[in-house]
């Protein structure tokens, strides 16, 4: 989904580059986000104090499709830090009355139950929730794609898939969706420098204009949401 670039280090030049984070919730006046501490930048973010001024740039990028979804069955598949943007999507669709709650199905996967983000948020929103963990500590043991496959087997009429998470998951989800001939949008996570189209650093290999050809899409402006079928996975 759409994202912001945050300068985690203030005046310090190490780390130098801003870090991209998706919205968890957002209005026209404020926003929240949810992140995992994985390295230097997110560690520094953990030290932010109430009242600190932080350099934030956004909203950036192209989010998930937000219209024409009323009569559709919406399957949101998320893993890891890809879950918050899906909550943002679900919430926005429900609030804007673009989709009906009962048509929204959320599939979440994680290594362990402690990494299943936003579970409560989704519950509060009142959408149906399907959980899986690699170690079986919560929900179904295994990958989230098997939950998705099971669901699509039962019913894939007017289904549309939206997913966000680690690349291997996106690839797997994309494969499943295309098996069932269901449209799917993925929000990719690629290394970025600027986040707004200035550096061309965030290349993503996608299908070219002619069959068999490829080109490099600029993920921060063309994406981060792409049609899964357009991406040339490694």
């Amino acid at each position, binding site marked *: 989904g759409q994202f912001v670039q945050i300068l985690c280090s203030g005046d310090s030049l*190490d780390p130098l580059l801003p870090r991209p984070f998706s919205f968890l919730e957002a209005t026209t006046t404020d926003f929240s986000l949810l992140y995992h501490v994985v390295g230097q930048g997110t560690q520094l973010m953990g030290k932010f104090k109430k009242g600190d001024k932080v350099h934030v740039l956004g909203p950036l990028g192209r989010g998930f499709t937000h219209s024409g979804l009323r009569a559709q069955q919406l399957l949101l598949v998320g893993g890891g830090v890809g879950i918050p943007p899906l909550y943002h999507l679900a919430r926005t669709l429900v609030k804007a009355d673009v989709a009906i709650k009962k048509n929204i199905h959320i599939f979440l996967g994680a290594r362990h139950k402690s990494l299943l983000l936003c579970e409560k948020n989704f519950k509060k929103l009142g959408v149906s929730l399907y959980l899986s963990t690699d170690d079986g500590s919560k929900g179904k043991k295994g990958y989230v794609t098997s939950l998705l496959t099971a669901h699509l087997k039962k019913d894939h009429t007017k289904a549309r898939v939206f997913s966000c998470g680690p690349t291997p998951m996106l690839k797997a989800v994309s494969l499943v969706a295309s098996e069932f001939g269901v449209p799917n949008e993925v929000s990719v996570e*690629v290394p970025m420098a*600027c986040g707004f189209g200035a*550096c061309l650093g965030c290349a993503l290999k996608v299908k070219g204009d002619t069959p068999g050809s490829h080109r490099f899409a600029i993920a921060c402006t063309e994406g981060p949401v792409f049609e899964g079928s357009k991406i040339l996975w490694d």
Partner: protein
Amino acid sequence: MGLDLSVQIGKIKLKNPVLVASGTFGHAKEFENFFDLKKLGGIVTKTITIKPRLGNPPPRIVETPAGMLNAIGLQNPGVEKFIEEKLPYFRKLGVPIIVSVMGYSVDEFVQVVQTLDRADGIDGYELNLSCPNVPYSSKTEALSLVKMFAHDDRMIEEVVSAVRQVTDKTLIAKLGPDVSDVPKMALAAEKAGADAVSLINTFIAMVIDVKTRKPVLANKTGGLSGPCIRPIAVRMVWETAKRIKIPVIGMGGIMNAEHALEFLIAGATAVQVGTANFMNPEASSQVLSGIEDFMKKEKLSSMKEIIRSVKS
């Protein structure tokens, strides 16, 4: 009394010395909501080649201490499409447009410039002699082993002379830092008719992922830019400005006005803001206003009082 920030680069009178560096400013449009682009002294475009280039596969960038590596691989639409699709927007801005060009041979350099010269709205060219990410070749047999134009003064002379013959527009030779003797390279460009030299392009560099034992960049090496290289860039500008008569355009890690002033005091006539645009899209505009503040504070009225004013 008004401040006069103007400087002259070849035939171009820049209303102020702050430009944006090639490859770091998208197609300019990406910045239009951040500040009034008209403020800029000038814009150097992403490097354009004769044919479109897809660029390198990802990963193309990796962060380093106070810097970053890039191996974009000169992704660009090619000269024809550039003229058709990108140039009209630049033209509208009303600031000097310097098109960065590169060729895989002397001929290609000439062809790109000739093609661009037929289009309107271009004020000058910056010859990217030093892009580290693509293999080069030269017509001259003996030199064909040299990997980069910028690494050999004879090749620099060859390219600049050839291009000089086909255009009257301002010609800037952009040099790379990975050489023993930057002034020598600059002298070669000057001799061949360049109106200015731009210093510096990125350093060839590498980051290895210890876990996978692979270079992080798909291209293996990339160009190092950002604040980490600034002290080296300032030294190169300083030693080069003393040796050549044409102006030097300085860059490398400029994040704010103080850094820009360092380059100007060291001997640069103008500066380019590069990597800083990624962290702070208003960086170039802030550099400009910071220079103005400095001039007011120090009661200076023209750039002459700053450029090459380093004391020893």
